[in-house]
């Protein structure tokens, strides 16, 4: 990534649900940028708001504060019809559970091409051609188009989900835990597929997951999110070798290692947010180096940064 062209710019995003007494802020003052052609990862435990960020970009949830800029254009709130059309085409999503995200009563042909039909008139012939092309691209046979989702295995269903996103010729794909419902051996296949598609088409990914071990393989940069707040943002390898925030460390220690000896000697770190004393010394977004940021107050930052080079 020599020239970092910003594709998506998120500024002070806040997403809140409910109102008045029941108001719950799921995403609180989140800012980050995603560069063209990179894979950006968001990790956190369930309830941390990682999915909500992805959904806010997709315009499924509306942002209560802040801005989302796609190629410099604001895409949250009220936007023009033509921009809306462009965004729906250029940003696509892959969902977590391939069992639940495909319409059981529709044939693959319809599932994959539904987005195309919404975009405007398209001839039957062209539609079929594009469906076969998309299926081929994800490693499925074009004949599968006339089958129903229940005839496929979990890995194949996830491929159908990917084909549905690809047929729109997107630039940016949000993958929300695309492999956590799959078997280990199938996981590898789907990850390889996503990786290959990125290389071939120059796609940009936002990859949401709870498992850091998968992230290491696929992402370029990672944002760690806890209770709606990004606590650390760093280049992937840097994050693994130099984790600063205690929550990141807790997540790292939870990765199951395929080594029984190391596992027996491992100590599990548990993150408790009461360890911070943020009453007087407020936390800030601190910069360790060009690619590594952490949320900390002055005292914490000077202590944490001592441990790294």
């Amino acid at each position, binding site marked *: 990534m020599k020239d970092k062209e910003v594709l998506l710019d998120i500024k002070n995003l806040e997403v809140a649900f409910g109102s008045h007494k029941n108001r719950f802020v799921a995403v609180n003052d989140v800012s980050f940028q995603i560069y063209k052609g990179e894979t950006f990862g968001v990790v956190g*435990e*369930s*309830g941390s708001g990682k999915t909500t960020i992805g959904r806010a970009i997709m315009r499924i949830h509306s942002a209560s504060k802040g801005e989302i800029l796609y190629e410099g254009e604001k895409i949250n709130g009220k936007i023009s019809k033509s921009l809306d059309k462009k965004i729906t085409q250029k940003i696509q999503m892959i969902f977590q559970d391939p069992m639940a995200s495909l319409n059981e009563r529709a044939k693959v042909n319809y599932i994959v091409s539904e987005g195309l039909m919404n975009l405007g008139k398209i001839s039957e012939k062209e539609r079929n051609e594009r469906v076969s092309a998309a299926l081929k691209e994800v490693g499925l046979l074009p004949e599968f188009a006339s089958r129903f989702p229940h005839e496929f295995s*979990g890995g194949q269903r996830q491929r159908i989900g990917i084909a549905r996103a690809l047929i729109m010729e997107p630039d940016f794909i949000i993958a929300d835990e695309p492999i956590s419902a799959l*078997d*280990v*051996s*199938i*996981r*590898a*296949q789907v*990850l*390889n597929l996503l*990786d*290959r598609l990125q290389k071939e088409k120059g796609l940009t990914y936002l990859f949401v997951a*709870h*498992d*850091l*071990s*998968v992230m*290491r*393989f*696929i992402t370029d940069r990672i944002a760690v999110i806890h209770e709606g707040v990004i606590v650390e943002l760093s280049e*992937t*390898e840097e994050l*693994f*070798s130099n*984790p600063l925030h205690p929550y990141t460390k*807790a*997540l*790292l*220690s*939870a*990765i*199951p*290692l*395929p*080594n*029984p*000896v*190391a*596992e*027996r000697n*491992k100590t*599990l770190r*548990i993150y408790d947010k009461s360890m911070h004393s943020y009453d007087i010394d407020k936390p800030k977004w601190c910069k360790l180096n060009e690619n590594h940021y952490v949320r900390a107050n002055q005292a914490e930052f000077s202590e944490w940064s001592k441990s790294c080079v």
Partner: protein
Amino acid sequence: MMNNNEIILSAKDVEVKFDLRGQILTAIREVSLDIYKGETLAIVGESGSGKSVFTKTFNGLLDKNGKVTKGELWYNGEDLARYKKEKNWLKIRGHEIAMIMQEPMTSLNPLKTIGDQIVEAIRIRDRKITYSKAKKEAIEYLSEVGIKNPESRFKQYPHEFSGGMRQRVVIAIAIACKPKILICDEPTTALDVTIQAQILNVLKEMKDKYSLTIVFITHDLGVVANVADRIAVMYAGDIIEIGTADEIFFDPRHPYTWALLSSMPQLGIKGNDLFTIQGNPPNLFTEIKGDAFAPRNPHALQIDFIQRPPYFQVTDTHKAKTWLLDPRAPKVEKPKGILELQNLTAN
């Protein structure tokens, strides 16, 4: 670990068949397995390998169209494979052999408070116990599995708990019956990694406290490194390799075990493709000839397609079903990534 070699459950040549609208599916193909008292045995395999079906035969939970057609299952001097009536199973299920399912959302009753669900389990074990006594005991179980404020949590419903907390409740219910064997069927698959690590710890604590024997089913080898004393690898309804955790991770012998280990994302190097297993698992409706893994196995020998390999003993505790271990077989090197497993350490 395995300082006593007392066998608690012994399966001999168990075969399970399902009748699917007239078509016969052989889910388990003559599996033998001894489970030792007090150990944690992990059964690992892809979906469809028969790992769940196999353990369901231990407590009579097979679907109606499935049957143990061959073999014996010895537990406590009785052959469970002979059990035909539900009445027989009621003595075993829960009391002797309990099970924890994958999805904590679906294994709890949404209409009953979690306290009452634990009390129900206690009362099945001990019919004469008073409610207040049972309640006291239930609260104890809740605090043991790591639920804070057990007194107030006792009165709450499952929807008021998070996924990890629900799984703790399920564990408490299983413990309440005081079983000897606890079968955990993918207990952490639906959970986050941080929660997963905590649940594994709870299971370990419960095992020590109640001297349980645990059978742990999973598709993810990474998870079992933490908990398992021994690991059995299943493929197409057969245990193709079994050994201690160290032996399976550091000295695996079956090409399928190699493939499973190599496809873990933990071993991936950015920019390179992850290892994947080519092809599909065999069709269990047809009879499998030779080694079931042979068509997907790059190291397959000719004999693999003709004759089913027997177990070859590697050490006293480690055996594998592959012709590669036959003295006449050519030497095949293990994939490189597996050798690196030993160097993997925590960050």
